[in-house]
């Protein structure tokens, strides 16, 4: 009521409630479409350039490992996709938090769109790891803490993908998916620290915040560039999907309005 009193002209009864608080400024789907439309071409170009540069350098030019030979090159795909599997889940959980607590309309859609992309990167991480494991370890798969916790992450993604689409009322799907995504956050520190808390067959992290990396510089640089390229690719894919989802929702709203008015 007070809102209507202070903005008697600006706030028509049918307008969405977005645009009030500072947080909701970014939830406005129209503003999101304008902003992302301007950013997306540049983001896509940078993502493609860095991914191609990182992978080309890593897979073709970087030196071979003294012990593993060319098989070590699989890390230029494996490590960035593993980072993105975890970071993607973190962004899914963040979107879920905004969806659940602040009922952000854009966060609902973001969570739906992040799921399949994150699942793809997780599957890539598991597949490349398996291909490396057979020649190096002597096994495609072992049930150690790191591998098992990443497999659980893949199942969390798949569960979320199914759950958000399982209800006739999309809002119930968003809420249930958000609860599942937030419960799954427990898995993220387990993945990260599994190689330190328990002895595993998977090696510990080569790149740490606290120590010098145990990768030679000639191999570290292409890895970092590939990782940035993968991250930008993830962001670009999610942004493009989210734009499509927002537009789809608008079109559906317009069609519905037309059908009602007839």
């Amino acid at each position, binding site marked *: 009521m007070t809102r209507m009193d202070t903005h008697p002209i600006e706030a028509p009864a049918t307008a969405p409630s977005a645009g009030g608080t500072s947080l909701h400024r970014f939830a406005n789907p129209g503003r999101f479409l304008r902003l992302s439309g301007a950013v997306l071409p540049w983001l896509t170009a940078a993502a493609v350039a860095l991914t191609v540069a990182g992978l080309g350098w890593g897979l073709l030019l970087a030196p071979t490992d003294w012990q593993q030979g060319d098989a070590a090159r699989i890390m230029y795909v494996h490590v960035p996709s593993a980072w993105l599997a975890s970071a993607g889940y973190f962004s899914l959980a963040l979107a879920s938090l905004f969806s659940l607590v602040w009922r952000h309309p854009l966060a609902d859609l973001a969570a739906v769109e992040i799921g399949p992309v994150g699942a793809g990167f997780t599957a890539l991480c598991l597949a490349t790891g398996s291909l490396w494991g057979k020649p190096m370890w002597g096994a495609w798969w072992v049930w150690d803490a790191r591998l098992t916790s990443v497999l659980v992450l893949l199942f969390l993604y798949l569960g979320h993908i199914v759950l958000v689409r399982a209800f006739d009322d999309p809002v119930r799907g968003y809420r249930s998916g958000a609860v599942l995504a937030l419960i799954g956050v*427990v898995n993220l520190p387990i993945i990260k620290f599994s190689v330190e808390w328990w002895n595993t067959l998977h090696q510990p992290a080569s790149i740490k915040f606290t120590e010098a990396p145990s990768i030679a510089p000639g191999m570290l640089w292409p890895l970092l560039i590939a990782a940035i390229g993968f991250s930008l690719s993830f962001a670009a894919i999610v942004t493009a999907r989210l734009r499509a989802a927002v537009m789809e929702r608008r079109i559906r709203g317009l069609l519905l309005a037309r059908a009602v008015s007839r």
Partner: protein
Amino acid sequence: MTRKSRRLTIVAVCGLCLSAAAGLVLTAFNDNLVFFVSPSDIGKTAGNGRTVRLGGLVEPGSVTRGDKTSAATSFRITDGANSVPVTYNGILPDLFREGQGIVALGALRPDGTFQASEVLAKHDETYMPKEVAEALKKSGQWKPESGAPPPVNKARGG
């Protein structure tokens, strides 16, 4: 309290309870979450021919490859403090060498030797080109049979 802050509180409380529960479960199952046991701990877990995984470094100078009379390879797995003799009849992974970390699946026999049915190589987190490895060996900063190499970047900078 607005509805938003109530929802936030509920999420925070649920998160705390969930992390506490997960922490307790992981602590309780700590012994079962390890992938392998060390030579020092194997006496505690591997009684009565139970199948376990034994992990450690291949002790330098302990490897006897199979010959014409028997194909079995025998070597010792050490963790620095204790070592266990291992016999294995099968194909070893490419990374198997003295000083290399490995994990063997098998059981402890009454005579104290470990009969392995599977041997996996454990790669460490060090990645370096062949030339750097050669340079480190030549300068005597690292002997491959005595364990993991020193940090690459420090060695390179020096």
